[in-house]
């Protein structure tokens, strides 16, 4: 589904990604771990097309199509979803209206009929329930005054509504209490299937218990330093990055 080869990217003229390779197939879940500042969020932003994250080399194909040639909204409409490490507040814009706009634009681009406010309300309420999200939140301004955990729950809700095929979840587990973590992780697992793929950026092994990763990668200094299976995550948890890479001879 996603083929990333030799991806290089700069932020403010500083090279952050120094040649990333990553191959994600349908039905797979890839966990990406790595120390703070190693470039995990940069990789997510570069794939989603955030302005200011300039790709200077390599390629990224989404279903064989050149992802990097598309504006960010086209990538989103084609089914690439990014759950933000730091969700953004938009004062005065009601959450449900905001999401309906994006939802309908996505439908329109596929030639599908738009949902009217009532139909969408039904849909979003159903999704909110399955994520145990307080329905009052979806009538509030986008992320404004949301607690850290509520923001993450809100990212999961948006993902549930938009039904993307490639889900890039940047630290969706940070700042969640134990129950919230389980609920959100189970929700994501429930929405996974043979046609979806997940890239899960995380610092903790705990979420992997719910979202069985098929692959685990360790990103260090802008490159994939090691790849492996579930056991690599345990190794990271036990030994830390310094000794991990020392042991690997990197």
């Amino acid at each position, binding site marked *: 589904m996603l083929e990333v080869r030799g991806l290089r990217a700069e932020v403010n003229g500083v090279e952050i990604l120094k040649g990333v390779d990553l191959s994600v197939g349908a039905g797979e879940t890839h966990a990406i771990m790595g120390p703070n500042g190693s470039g995990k969020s940069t990789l997510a932003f570069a794939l989603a097309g955030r*302005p200011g994250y300039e790709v200077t080399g390599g390629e990224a194909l989404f279903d064989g199509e050149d992802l990097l040639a598309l504006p960010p909204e086209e990538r989103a409409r084609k089914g690439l979803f990014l759950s933000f490490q730091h969700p*953004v507040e938009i*004062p*005065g*814009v009601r959450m449900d209206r*905001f999401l309906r*706009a*994006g939802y309908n634009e996505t439908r329109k681009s596929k030639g599908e009929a738009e949902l009217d406010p009532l139909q969408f309300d039904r849909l979003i309420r159903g999704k909110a329930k399955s994520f145990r999200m307080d329905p009052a939140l979806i009538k509030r301004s*986008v992320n404004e005054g949301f607690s850290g955990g509520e923001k993450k729950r809100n990212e999961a809700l948006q993902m549930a509504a938009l039904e993307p095929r490639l889900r890039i979840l940047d630290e969706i587990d940070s700042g969640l209490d134990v129950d919230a973590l389980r609920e959100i992780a189970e929700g994501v697992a429930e929405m996974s299937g043979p046609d979806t793929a997940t890239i899960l950026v995380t610092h903790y092994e705990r979420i992997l218990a719910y979202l069985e990763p098929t692959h685990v990668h360790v990103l260090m200094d802008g490159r994939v330093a090691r790849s492996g299976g579930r056991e690599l995550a345990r190794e990271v948890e036990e030994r830390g990055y310094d000794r991990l890479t020392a042991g690997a001879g990197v």
Partner: protein
Amino acid sequence: MTTATNRAVRELAEQSYQYGWTTDVEEESVPPGLNEDIVRWISARKGEPEWLLEWRLRAFRHFMTLLDDARLPAWANVSHPPVDFQAIRYYAAPKAAAELSSLDEVDSEILRTYEKLGIPLEEQKRLSGVAVDAIFDSVSVMTTAKETLAKYGVIFSSVSAAVQEHPDLVRKYLGSVVPYSDNFYAALNAAVFSDGSFVYIPPGVRCPLELSTYFRINAQESGQFERTLIIADKGAYASYLEGCSAPMRDENQLHAAVVELVALDDAEIKYATIQNWYPGDENGKGGIYNFVTKRGKCAGARSRISWTQVETGSAITWKYPSVILQGDGSTGEFYSVALTKGRQQADTGTKMTHIGKNTSSRIISKGISAGRGNNTYRGLVKVLPNAENAVNYTQCDSLLIGDQCGAHTVPYIEAQNRSASVEHEASTTRVSEDQIFYCQQRGLTREAAQSVIVNGFVREVVKRLPLEFSVEADRLLEVNLEGTVG
């Protein structure tokens, strides 16, 4: 950040004006220039009584002394070449349209104009709870829904008609809130005002319809000097909305209106404006000078007046809808959105004068600047010595799009009574790339993202408008902010 922002700025700057066509109708007009004969001619043309002519002439003489002393208002944060008052045509009217009783008699070209503007008079008349008065250049063309209103005793007509049919009411209230000596443009307006709307709501009546006026400047070199007078008698309620547009012309055109509101005991008036006069081209050529005096008087106890405005047009806007809180326990409100882009300048705000006891006022101002637009909020909260327990809350927020625009907040507070509570909050923010990208990641284009963010910024004000007009206001902001595919 900068390249994206520059693109957004360019898109805004290149946004063209959508209401810029002219209408081909036969016009009756006077030659350009201002003198006593013109004033007399206008008054005679309208068959006005002697007292009104006298009033106009006093205003005219006062205006000429101000003009001789070069006492043009100089304090606003706007700049423009001097207005040549002798180059303006002070009366222009579609021929044969002076006073009509049915839509069939209205020139079909004019009706089509209003349709293009999205105001189908026929529709309005038939369906909605909206009564429309349409002012085309200098005269009122049509007042719909007259019969429905008559059932409730509501008078909604052109000022010219009211002068004929309800002279006592007009004489009692005209100039009672904005005297001709009030300011330079108020004097000019009193001398040459050609028409406008008149509303009277009798005691205890809640006006069942939204009252609405659309102003359109069509003729070349003409100025528009309408005068609106709204009176809500004891316990009465009225909601009124005005909308404005004008064709694209290279020369600047002057719009100097006066609006007076009077609310007696327990009465309430809500006055809303959606102003989209032609703003001039991207180099600042042409456009309307919108110099308007709007003031309401809460004359009675527990009366309420609220001004809501969405200002997107005009080369220069200079207006301060104000409330005189005279009645004990009266309330004044001002909710404003002002958008400036290209070379537009807006100096707008309000003046709340607390006179009675236990009076309160509330001011919410949202300024949006893009391109090289310049936006100033100027507000005065004045508490007189006898105004016990006056309360004011003021909030001024500015949103900047790009780095060549300006936003300024100039609050004046004069509290002469120590029991007064006056609170002022202000903020300035930018549309952030983070917000735009977040929207894009959910499937919105840059343009759509920007208008979503702007709509959020103005929500608090726009939600005060009657539903159909809040939709119109959102659309207008969107049109004004959308690029020509970027």
